[in-house]
């Protein structure tokens, strides 16, 4: 028919003799699996196959033999991928990524406490508490993300079909229904329409058998099965049916040649589970971030360690300081913030039908630069639909949209009515019972895909086909077969006065045309002339060129005198006229693109994401769909198109001129790595057709080699290796196979490619917002560390204690930091290029420079100001403070003199010190107000961005209320050693808060004024 179909999959030459491939990763076995399928039985005769398995093609295996084989080969089931035990998953959450930093901090704290406990009589509990809190934070966050992911996998599990499969086998000449797991090699099995094929079988006999291989090859059209070997490639030949594909109609008998993991499907599944996946981009970013933080911490720690030694502290004290400084650099709250931010986004995405299996994958779509999409079921509806019709010498377009919102055509023509009648009558498909309530397009149909398409089309346009069939009783029928290439049926007419029979016929257009002598135009029969034939040819070519499957229709009223009522039509030995018919028209079908896809592809393109189609389907169909959805955009040509347009041979076209290209699987296998890279680099619009699962994997690897972050979408088993290998695999929730869902990181619950765009958007947004959250959280690190540094160097009373630091990191900073995840994008994030994973880091030196070097310093100064104010107003002027530390912290000194000559007991001055801690803490809260407002944007002014983030406003109030609570709540002096502040002390940090706001607004103004200027290069994070 209309397909320029040619051979495809790579032919295997070796027989896979070894037992199920071992799961040794990266070794020879993986390479072995990446090669093509080693089945040879299709080339053997049936007798040879029987001999090989010591079976009989009539009687089947003996029970004894079957039992023997079962023991030898094991059950006929896929080895489930090695599931990670729950505790391992839990530990991964506990010790993975960011947690390492906190664990290190906690261990250092315990170490410091141990040193203190060993050397001092009355060690301060601070380090112990800090260690405990750090441990608690990691454990709680670990549990949180563990349960979060467990929830996703529970939704996953609900997809699993737990019904055990049955198979009908013939053993010792008797048909027995057994569990599909017990099927062994050599078994004679029988399958019929609706069954799932229990193993890879070599067909021995078949009656109108068709199988749906779409989950294996991506080809949406069912293919017939017969005992003859039609192709060297086992995946192409007609005489092999594959494990876990479906028999659509007819019956077949075959000998099992492979079971379990040795089946084609099993090999793909094993390949998938053996693939190792790299780290997610966000995990890499967090690792990079940890490096930076550790670097800063160790640098500060060592510097002050040396300084402490120089200042005359003892070694042990210096070590305690070293540990203290390193631990102070750990942003305690950040792990929780990042986890919550990712979870919020995951929830938001789940609401938009993107279920994320792995929290870290939330961001991956945002960094994606290439999407390799499967065609069938992802881009298309995976449902043959009538797309075009040709009648009255004109091509009409049918509505292919899912919701019937598309264009319609003129239905009043008599020709159309005849065409509809033929299409409805000469059609064996019918709706399954009990679906009257469903919309027509959603109903299940028993029958072949094209006939179903016709049935639905007619039912939609002309009402009940069943009623029409009842009115026109079928009296005889010749079903479709590959020699006739037509289908024919004879009906009584609905007009009771008319005793003539109606003969209707459909089939391959050229075959139908041969049977016709007239053609119907505008409802009138006209003799078929050359002009009309020419016109037919053009229409046929055009529709075929669209990648559509074209059928021709014709009919005739049989003359009453020759075929009177009750005439015995013999369909085997045709005793009636099958020529001189009247041609009516053509109908062509395609698996049409989903409505939302072209728009989504367009959005991906404007977001700088390359969309590549990788399909098992034929190049022409693939190209047609690619053009339909915009993967090959309008006006772009392939090498072949250019050659056709210029009328020159393909070899003379410069491949560089063509932006688009369609690559066939057979060509792909001959390409070297360099040629592959060349294609991926130089063509913006690529379609890979007739690709095997292994080739899909190679394509993904090729893209990754070029530095792209690759997303793969797919639904079939054939996609699962690529899904696993991709940086983010996206499986389809409704149509997707279990294997593909297992391999994927994300599942589109509505099977809608457009949801990916949402995913990209959310992913990019969360990356930006995480930057903001981190910038916000890190800033307060400086006012938390500097007090300790000054305590060591200037010997002043400690300005900020461990408890207050924790109150900031785990208390007041939390909600504002999380609220930044709700921040809306500053500009259209779908209009910019995907981030470059090598250059655009989550945390870079500019972010650290801003957060630590600039804003953090202002905050520290604000805190110290509050500290000095309180001490001065209580009698200790700054000049008195320097060097006071030893006496200040000495419990036995109960008459320490202040600047005014008053004398203080230890407890009295400690209360002042703790009041200072509280004031320092409150000051940090006050300057963090300004910080969260400036962190809302990275480039825009806050006046452009607005204050619409309600969570953030809530956060501002919440942190203030929390600070006030901690300061004023009775009992806090005992519980956390925080004391009430005089109202005026709240205002100490206000000038600095204001300074932060003004400073950053000016910075951002300069940034916007001079794009690419010094300010941007040095401060844009």
């Amino acid at each position, binding site marked *: 028919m209309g397909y320029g179909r040619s051979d495809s999959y790579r032919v295997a030459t070796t027989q896979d003799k070894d037992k199920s491939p071992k799961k040794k990763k990266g070794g020879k076995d993986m390479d072995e699996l990446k090669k093509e399928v080693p089945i040879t039985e299709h080339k053997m005769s049936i007798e040879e196959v029987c001999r090989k398995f010591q079976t009989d093609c009539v009687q089947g295996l003996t029970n004894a033999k079957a039992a023997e084989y079962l023991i030898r080969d094991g059950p006929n089931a896929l080895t489930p991928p090695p599931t990670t035990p729950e505790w391992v998953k839990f530990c991964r959450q506990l010790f993975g990524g960011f947690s390492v930093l906190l664990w290190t901090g906690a261990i250092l704290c315990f170490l410091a406490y141990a040193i203190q406990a060993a050397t001092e009589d009355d060690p301060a509990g601070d380090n112990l508490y800090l260690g405990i809190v750090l441990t608690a934070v990691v454990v709680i966050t670990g549990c949180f993300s563990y349960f979060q992911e467990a929830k996703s996998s529970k939704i996953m599990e609900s997809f699993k079909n737990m019904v055990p499969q049955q198979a009908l086998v013939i053993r010792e000449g008797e048909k027995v229904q057994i569990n599909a797991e017990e099927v062994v090699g050599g078994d004679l099995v029988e399958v019929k329409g609706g069954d799932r094929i229990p193993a890879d079988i070599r067909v021995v006999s078949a009656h109108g058998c068709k199988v749906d291989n779409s989950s294996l090859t991506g080809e949406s059209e069912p293919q017939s099965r017969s005992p003859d070997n039609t192709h060297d490639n086992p995946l192409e030949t007609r005489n092999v049916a594959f494990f876990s594909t479906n028999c659509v109609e007819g019956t077949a008998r075959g000998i099992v040649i492979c079971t379990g993991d040795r089946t084609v499907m099993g090999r793909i599944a094993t390949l998938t589970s053996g693939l190792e996946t790299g780290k997610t981009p966000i995990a890499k970013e967090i690792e990079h971030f940890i490096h930076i933080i550790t670097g800063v911490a160790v640098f500060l720690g060592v510097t002050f360690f040396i300084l402490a030694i120089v200042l005359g502290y003892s070694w042990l004290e210096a070590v305690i300081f070293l540990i203290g400084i390193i631990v102070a650099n750990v942003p305690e709250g950040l792990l929780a913030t990042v986890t919550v931010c990712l979870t919020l986004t995951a929830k938001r995405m789940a609401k938009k039908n993107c279920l994320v299996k792995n929290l870290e994958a939330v961001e991956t779509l945002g960094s994606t630069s290439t999407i390799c999409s499967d065609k069938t079921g992802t881009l298309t509806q995976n449902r043959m639909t009538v797309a075009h019709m040709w009648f009255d010498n004109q091509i009409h377009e049918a509505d292919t949209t899912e919701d019937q919102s598309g264009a319609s055509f003129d239905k009043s023509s008599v020709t159309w009515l005849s065409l509809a009648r033929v299409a409805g009558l000469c059609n064996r498909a019918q709706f399954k019972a009990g679906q009257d309530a469903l919309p027509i397009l959603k109903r299940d149909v028993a029958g072949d895909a094209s006939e179903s398409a016709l049935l639905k089309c007619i039912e939609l346009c002309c009402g009940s086909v069943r009623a029409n069939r009842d009115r026109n009783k079928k009296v005889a029928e010749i079903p479709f077969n590959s020699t006739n290439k037509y289908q024919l049926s004879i009906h009584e007419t609905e007009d009771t006065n008319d005793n003539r029979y109606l003969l209707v016929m459909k089939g391959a257009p050229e075959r139908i045309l041969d049977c016709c002598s007239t053609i119907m135009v505008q409802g009138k029969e006209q003799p078929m002339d050359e002009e009309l034939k020419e016109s037919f040819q053009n229409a046929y070519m055009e529709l075929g060129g669209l990648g559509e499957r074209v059928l021709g229709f014709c009919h005739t009223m049989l003359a009453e005198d020759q075929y009177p009522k009750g005439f015995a039509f013999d369909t085997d030995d045709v005793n009636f006229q099958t020529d001189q018919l009247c041609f009516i028209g053509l109908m062509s079908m395609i698996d049409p693109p989903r409505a939302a896809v072209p728009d989504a592809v367009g959005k991906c393109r404007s977001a700088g994401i390359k969309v590549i189609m990788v399909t098992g389907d034929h190049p022409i169909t693939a190209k047609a769909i690619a053009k339909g959805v915009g993967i090959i955009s309008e006006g772009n040509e392939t090498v072949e198109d250019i050659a056709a347009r210029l009328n020159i041979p393909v070899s003379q076209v410069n491949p560089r001129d063509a932006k688009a290209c369609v690559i066939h699987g057979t060509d792909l296998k001959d390409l070297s790595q360099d040629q592959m890279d060349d294609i991926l680099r130089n063509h913006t619009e690529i379609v890979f057709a007739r690709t095997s699962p292994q080739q899909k994997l190679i394509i993904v690897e090729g893209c990754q080699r070029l530095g792209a972050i690759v997303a793969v979408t797919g639904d079939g088993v054939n996609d699962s290796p690529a899904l696993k290998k991709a940086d983010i695999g996206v499986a389809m929730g409704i149509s997707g196979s279990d294997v593909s869902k297992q391999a994927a990181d994300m599942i589109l619950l509505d099977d809608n490619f457009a949801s990916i765009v949402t995913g990209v958007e959310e992913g990019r947004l969360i990356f930006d917002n995480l930057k903001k959250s981190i910038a916000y959280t890190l800033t307060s690190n400086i006012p938390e560390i500097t007090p300790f540094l000054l305590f060591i160097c200037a010997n002043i009373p400690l300005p900020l204690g461990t408890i207050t630091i924790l109150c900031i990191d785990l208390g007041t900073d939390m909600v504002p930091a999380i609220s930044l995840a709700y921040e809306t994008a500053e500009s259209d994030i779908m209009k910019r290029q995907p981030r470059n994973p090598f250059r655009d880091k989550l945390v870079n030196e500019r972010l650290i420079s801003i957060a630590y070097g600039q804003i953090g*310093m*202002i905050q520290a100064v604000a805190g110290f100001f509050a500290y000095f104010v309180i001490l001065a107003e*209580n009698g200790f002027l700054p000049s008195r403070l320097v060097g006071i530390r030893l006496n200040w912290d000495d419990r036995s000194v109960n*008459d320490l003199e202040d600047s*005014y000559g*008053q004398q203080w007991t*230890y407890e*009295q001055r400690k209360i*002042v010190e703790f009041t200072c801690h509280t004031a320092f803490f409150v000051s940090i809260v006050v300057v963090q107000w300004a910080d969260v407002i400036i962190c809302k944007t990275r480039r825009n002014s806050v006046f452009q961005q607005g204050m619409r983030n309600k969570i953030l406003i809530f956060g501002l109030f919440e942190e203030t209320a929390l600070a006030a609570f901690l300061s004023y709540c009775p009992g806090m002096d005992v519980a956390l050693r925080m004391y009430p502040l005089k109202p005026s002390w709240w205002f100490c940090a206000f000038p600095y808060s204001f300074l932060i706001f003004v400073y950053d607004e000016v910075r951002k103004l300069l940034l916007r004024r001079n794009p690419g200027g010094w300010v941007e*290069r040095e401060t844009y994070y």
Partner: protein
Amino acid sequence: MAPSGLILLFYFVFYAFLAGMFCLTMWVMLQTLDENIPTYQDRVPSPGLVIRPHAAEISFNRSDPTNYNQYTQHLHNFLQNYNDSVQERNDLCLVGEYTDQDAEPVKKVCQFKRSLLRQCSGLSDSSFGYAEGKPCIIIKMNRVIGLKPQGDPFINCTAKKNSPLQIRYFPSEGRLDKMFFPYYGKNTHADYVQPLVAVQLLLSKEDLNVEQTVECRVEGSNLRNNDERDKALGRVTFRVLVSE
């Protein structure tokens, strides 16, 4: 080199500015302070008690002077300011009356002569009783600006032990005279000396070689002496171990 130089220059200017702003705000704050009296005194509502010699445990061998020399030396040093020669320059004040002098620009200082401490003055017995095994401990109350104790404050010491310990107080009854209050601060009241109370533990023979825990409180006034948290507020506890 140039770009990194630029960022260094930027940071230099930035921090200079920040330092300037800090100094400015500090200066403004310091302008609001009174030089004679701190803005807030609510954290020192009540004075603490401390002892001299400064030690949590006073333990010595009474027959070995080198053993207790550190204590007596400490006391001698401490009492330098109370030498009669120094104190005679100060004014005599009305006994039992506050020495209110809010209006005067230069505050007078009431004299507290070392000799008031009699046996514990170290004048007659330069070993402060340490040689006899009857050590003197001087108790002093922290200076708090403007503090005017109500009632008649006096120091009362008790031994935390079953048999009562003989204790002698100088001045008599351990009285802290009201004339030494209020204190006007280092600036205007530079030579101020706070009143002292010396307690002499008259240890008996049986008390030797036994650790004595003594707690002294200020009583007879509104001054706090039983704070849960602050064990130094209006009271002081110390241990004495005299061996032979």
